[in-house]
C-alpha cells in the first residue's frame, strides 16, 4: 500500500484553533503542499495577517513575521527587497487586504514586488465576530449590517482580483475556490503558479481564494459551501484575471 494523501511537511503537526469547517485549514494545506513540491520550505518566509489566521505562524514550519493589520504587503516588501533569494508570501483575509490594507496591496502590486500574495475572501470579518467586510455581498446580513448590506449606505463590494489585475505591475492574478475537489485542485495549481512566478523572478502574483465562514454565516460547513457556490461565485467569478506570460495557462 502506498500513501495517496498525507499531511504536507511544511505544516507543523499541531491542531489549529480554526472553527470546524473553516477553509483556512484547507488553504494552509494547499500552500504547504506547494512548498513541499517546490522544495522551498527552507527558504520561505511567511508574512501573517491580523484576522482569524493571525496564528498561522504556529502552523507553518517556515520562518514567519506577524505583520500589522493590513500591512503584510509592505512588511513582505521589506523582507523580499533585502532578501531577494528567499521566497516570501503574504496571507490575508478580506479586512486585512481590502479594507485597512488596500493601499499596501495596490502599491505592492503596482511596484511589481516579486511576491506571492494569498487573499482569503469569505465576505465577512471572522475574528472579530462577523462584521461587514469590503467583500460582503449586497443584502448579506452581518453584525454591522443587521438588516442586510444596503448599497445606498454601505456601497458595493470590491472585486479585488479585477482591481489588482488593472495594474501593469501585477504579473498574475487568479480567483479560485475551495468548495469542490475540482476547484480545490485548480486552487492548488494557481497557488503553485504564484510561487513559481516568484522563484522565476516574474513579479507580483495574487491568488484570491473564495472561502467559507460557517460560524459567522450561521450555516453548517456543508451549507456554507453551497452558499459560496450560489452567492459568491456569481459575484466573484472564478478564473485568471491577469496572466502576463500568455504561455502559462
Amino acid at each position, binding site marked *: 500500500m502506498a500513501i495517496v494523501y498525507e499531511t504536507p511537511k511544511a505544516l507543523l503537526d499541531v491542531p489549529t484553533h480554526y472553527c470546524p469547517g473553516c477553509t483556512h485549514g484547507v488553504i494552509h494545506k494547499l500552500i504547504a503542499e506547494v512548498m513541499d513540491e517546490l522544495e522551498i*520550505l*527552507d*527558504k*520561505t*518566509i511567511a*508574512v501573517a495577517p491580523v484576522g482569524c489566521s*493571525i496564528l498561522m*505562524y*504556529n502552523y*507553518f*514550519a*517556515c*520562518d*514567519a*513575521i*506577524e*505583520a*500589522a493589520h493590513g*500591512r503584510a504587503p*509592505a*512588511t*513582505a*516588501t*521589506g*523582507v523580499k*527587497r*533585502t*532578501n531577494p533569494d*528567499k*521566497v516570501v508570501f503574504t496571507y490575508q483575509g478580506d479586512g486585512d487586504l481590502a479594507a485597512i490594507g488596500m*493601499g*499596501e496591496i495596490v*502599491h505592492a502590486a503596482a*511596484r511589481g514586488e516579486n511576491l506571492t500574495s494569498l487573499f482569503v475572501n469569505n465576505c465577512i470579518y471572522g475574528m472579530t465576530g462577523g462584521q461587514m467586510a469590503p467583500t460582503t455581498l449586497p443584502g448579506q446580513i452581518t453584525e454591522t449590517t443587521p438588516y442586510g448590506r444596503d448599497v445606498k449606505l454601505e456601497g458595493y463590494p470590491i472585486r479585488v482580483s479585477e482591481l489588482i489585475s488593472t495594474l501593469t505591475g501585477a504579473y498574475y492574478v487568479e480567483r479560485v475556490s475551495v468548495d469542490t475537489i475540482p476547484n480545490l485542485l485548480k486552487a492548488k495549481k494557481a497557488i503553485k503558479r504564484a510561487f513559481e512566478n516568484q522563484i522565476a523572478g516574474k513579479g507580483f502574483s495574487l491568488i484570491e481564494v473564495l472561502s467559507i465562514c460557517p460560524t459567522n454565516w450561521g450555516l453548517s460547513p456543508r451549507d456554507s459551501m453551497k452558499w459560496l457556490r450560489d452567492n459568491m461565485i456569481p459575484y466573484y467569478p472564478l478564473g485568471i484575471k491577469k496572466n502576463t506570460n500568455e504561455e502559462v495557462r
Partner: protein
Amino acid sequence: MGEKVLMKGNEAIGEAAIRANCMAFFGYPITPQTEVAAFMSRRMHKIGRVFLQAESEVAAINMVYGAAGSGVRCMTSSSSPGISLMSEGISNIAAAELPCVIVNIVRGGPGLGSIQPAQSDYFQATRGGGHGDYNMPVLAPASIQEMVDLVQDAFDIADIYRNPVMVMGDGMLGQMMEPVEFKDRPAVNLPLKDWAANGLSGRKTHNIINSLFLEADILEQHNIHLQAKYAEIMKNEVRYEMINCEENCDLILVAYGTTSRICKNVVKSAIKEGLKIGLIRPITLWPFPIEAFEKTITKTKYGFLSVEMSCGQMVYDIKLAVNGIKPVAFYGRSGGVVPHPDDILNKAKEIIGGAQ
C-alpha cells in the same frame, strides 16, 4: 579620514547611515526631511543596497519592520505627522524586539502645523510614541557632526539591545550646513541575529517575529523582560553635556538640539554680564540624564530653566528629576518659532532678579 566636508544635515544623516552599514532605507517625502530620502535614493542603488520610497509613512515603517525582522540593518526618516503615522509600527517593532533607526526631523505642530523647526515631539518620542509599555532610546544631536556620530551610534545601540532607536533633530538641523568629519570608529561587539526570520536554511526550529501574546501571564512576562532591557539601557546609555556647572551658579538652563546652541550663547552673554548661568544639555532624551540634575541640584541657587521649542514638554522630566527640591521654570516658543537668545537671557534674569 580627517577630511572635513560641508554637508547639509539631512544628507549627513544619510551618509552616516551608509557608513554604519545601513542596508535598506524605506521612507516617504515630508518637509523638512525629504532630502534624507532623496539623498538615499541617489546613493543606495549605486552601492547595491535597498532604497524604496513607500506609499506612505505607514507602509514605510512596516517595510522597516519586515527588513529588521529578517535581520537586516535598516532605517526610516520622517517628520512629526509622519512619525505619528508610524506610531503603531514603532510599538510593534519594540514589542517584537527588532533593531532599527528612526529619524525624526521635528516640525511645528500639532496637526499639519508648520514646516519650521520645533521640539514639540518630546512627549511622543520619550514615551515611546505608540501604544503599550515600551521605550526607545532618543538621541538628540545639536550639530551636524554630532548628528553623524549619533546616527552611527544609533545603529549599534539598536543591534545591542534589539530595540528601535530614534535620532531626533529639527528642521534647523536638517536644513543647515556644517563641516563634518567621518571618523574611523572602533569596532563594536554586536550580538548575532540568530532570532531573525530569514528562512530556515537548515535550522530545526522556525523563527517567528511577533508581538502577539494572547495569554495575559505570558504577555506580562514579556513586559517584565522588556522593562529589564530598558533598565539596562537607562544604566548604560545616558549621555549629556554640562557647561559652566562646576561651580555654584544662579540658574541652570536645560536645553537640547538647536535650542542648546542658542543657550550656549546665552551662557556666554550671561558670563559677560557677571551672571552665573550654566547649561545642562541632554544628548539622550530617553534615558533622561537624571544624574546631571543630581550632580548640580545643590549648586544652582534659583533652580533650572527649561528652554524648548514647544509649549513645555521636557520641563516635566526635569521636574521629576529635581523632585521639588529646587524650582523648575520654563521658557519656550512654539509653532516653529526659534527662541531668541536675548529673550532667554531676559527670562533668566527675571528668575534670578525676581527671586532676589
